[in-house]
């Protein structure tokens, strides 16, 4: 390039050089080595977590997918490749569809109740009333309760011979309900217990969110003569909508994954009324040793959760951002 310009205006040539040089001489090679170095750094920093992810997330994920296409023998080893037969037999099995239905009922009931009650408690606790801090402590109390303790607590309440509810019914001359042995009631009992377990956390998160709404918003509304209920729906709810969104997703996913209370309270019964998808997976894998089928169920469950989360993002995202 230089040679071409030599016979032209020297000033121009100088100018040209001044502009080109950094680009040509150092610029490119510098960029190249920098890119390489950046990549190396990226690898060094991401490597360990990538390794952990591969070993503990990706490998089990693909292994599960792989196993779902096999029959497994009594030692848990895949022996016969059967393609989608596991999927087909599951989706055509009335028992599995029953579980699916029970799971949806459970998840919807638990999510709705947890969100509604959590919000209600948080709103109540946000009132400036004397002694409200006592209730705040009470409301958040279930945060510290472990699943096993909660199960014991509720089993005692639902106990058919010596339970509190039974005695209460007795006292009021109402017919005793066999909470955990009648399908409809068992689901109710499990939902109540789960919601109770969830409430502490949900309450605390909602309470924090409500507290962080500037009080002047309410004052401004109050001066304009806006009713308390209108304030709740048109100020509080939109203001805490990001939290609402977060909690609803967490609650939904968590209730899809419910295991402990089910295991301890009903073990999936009666008549599979509370045999949720996760519990079925546990039974098939760890009790029956049927890993192929359990893997198939896991894949289906993962797809369902992914689908619901996707829907939630799509529907709620628009309403949340402000």
């Amino acid at each position, binding site marked *: 390039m230089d040679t071409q310009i030599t016979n032209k205006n020297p000033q121009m040539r100088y100018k040209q050089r001044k502009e080109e040089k950094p680009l040509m001489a150092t610029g490119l090679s510098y960029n190249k080595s920098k890119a390489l170095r950046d990549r190396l750094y990226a690898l060094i920093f991401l490597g360990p977590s990538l390794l952990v992810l591969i070993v503990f997330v990706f490998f089990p994920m693909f292994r599960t997918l792989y196993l779902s296409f096999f029959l497994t023998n009594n030692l848990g080893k895949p022996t016969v490749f059967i393609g989608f037969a596991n999927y087909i037999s599951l989706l055509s099995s009335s028992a599995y569809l029953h579980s699916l239905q029970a799971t949806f009922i459970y998840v919807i009931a638990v999510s709705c109740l947890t969100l509604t009650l959590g919000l209600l408690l948080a709103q109540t606790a946000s009132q400036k009333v004397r002694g409200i801090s006592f209730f705040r402590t009470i409301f958040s109390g279930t945060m510290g309760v472990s699943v096993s303790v909660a199960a014991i607590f509720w089993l005692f309440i639902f106990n058919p011979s010596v339970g509190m509810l039974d005695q209460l019914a007795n006292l009021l001359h109402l017919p005793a309900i066999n909470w955990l042995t009648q399908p409809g009631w068992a689901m109710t009992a499990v939902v109540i217990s789960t919601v109770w377990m969830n409430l502490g956390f949900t309450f605390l998160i909602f309470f924090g969110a409500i507290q962080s709404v500037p009080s002047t918003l309410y004052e401004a509304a109050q001066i304009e003569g806006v009713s308390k209920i209108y304030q709740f729906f048109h100020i509080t709810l939109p203001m805490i909508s990001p939290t609402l969104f977060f909690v609803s997703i967490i609650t939904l996913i968590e209730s899809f994954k419910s295991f402990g209370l089910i295991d301890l309270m009903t073990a999936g*019964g009666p008549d599979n009324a509370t045999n949720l998808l996760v519990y079925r997976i546990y039974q098939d894998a760890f009790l*029956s040793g049927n890993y192929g089928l359990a893997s198939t169920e896991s894949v289906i469950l993962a797809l369902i959760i992914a689908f619901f989360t996707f829907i939630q993002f799509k529907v709620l995202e628009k309403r949340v951002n402000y």
Partner: protein
Amino acid sequence: MKKINSYNSRPLLFLFLICIVLLTTLTGCSSAKADSKIQITFWHEMTGPAQVQLEKFVNEFNKSQNKYTVVPQFEGNYNEAVQKILNTHGTSASPAVFQSMDISTSQIYNSGYTTPVQKFINADNYNVNKISAVARAFYSKNGQQLSMPFNTSQPVLYYNASLLKKYDITPPPVDPSYSDISRVAQQLYARSDKKVKGLSVEIYGWLFEQFLANSGESLANNDDGHSGTPTAVNFSGTTAMTTMKWIQENIKSGAFMNYGSGSNAPTNEMAGFLSGKLGMFLQSSADISQLTAGTEDKLGITYYPHPDGQKSNGVSIGGASLWISNDKSRKVQRGSWEFIKYLMRSQNQAAWQAATGYLALNKDSQKEAVLQKLYQKNPAARIPSQQLARTVPNNTNSGIFMQGLIQERTLTQTAMEQIYDGKNIKSSLQDAEKQMNSYVKSLNQANK
């Protein structure tokens, strides 16, 4: 079969596992230093008094000779232990001798991971006739003893004798029929002004299996698997129909109490019985010590009930047996056998029954002072042993030699739940049967 071991301990499992890891590392270190005895790792799933007594036996065995050291390790509940046994085989972590539950027999046998105890019985000319035939039959295949029955129970009917006396009701006979039981249940419910429920039958696959056994009906084809791998099951035969009808009638009359299924059911059932709100229930003979300790009421026991108009065929057993792994050296296997023999001694079996409620399997145990004393104090305690002794083993009362029995229990329990909830008996049972048959099909395909 004592279910406390298989269900109740799940929340504590992880804690126990951690303790065991610590304990094994500690004991491992000390024993390696202390002596050059052959170490025999023994996996079991016993909790409570049974665990205490078992560890006592281990200590006594270790002291009684100087060739072997048995190291007991608790492995959680029955179901999980099976998976662990199968998954550790061939590694240094695997046990030399292990306890595995009744319904895992076919699965363990088919794994090919064990040395049948028959080999040692033959080598020693060990007199197995001293050991209960019904119990042995459960763990044998083609006349060959696969494992040694250990903690063994039989289902019986318990009744509150004091309560029956209070309401002036004639107790059920020792070998009752369904209608005998119904009669007592109805009377108790009526005469107590509906305050006391007459009868409870836990929703439990084991009890379902026993109804079939006691009337001599096979649950699986190929003679309950004793003459070949089963390919189909029978949940909706005559006996199942009769029995479920009997239960549903009692439910309709109000005299029956449904405690449901799962780990809480037996706990609630026992609480109901001990608090005088329940008159009779079917349960494992291993509950006897808890039942006598928990109440001042007099406890009555009968044999397992049978359908009307036929003789009882006798029930099979429940519980677990002891297996010897074949991935250990001959010396270690030999030591395992010596330990098993030690446990089966008549005085040890007597002590076992007295301490746990599991039945003494050695026929000589009945003469031991400790059992004589027990029977003197509580004559009803003799009933389970008598039931065991009078039963002549045949293909229908020697357990079901089939894989996938956990699934079988899950399915029969679901059917029972439906029936207890008032659904149609025939369709509930047939539905479960259909599901089990397709499960058996794929199981056989996978394990070819």
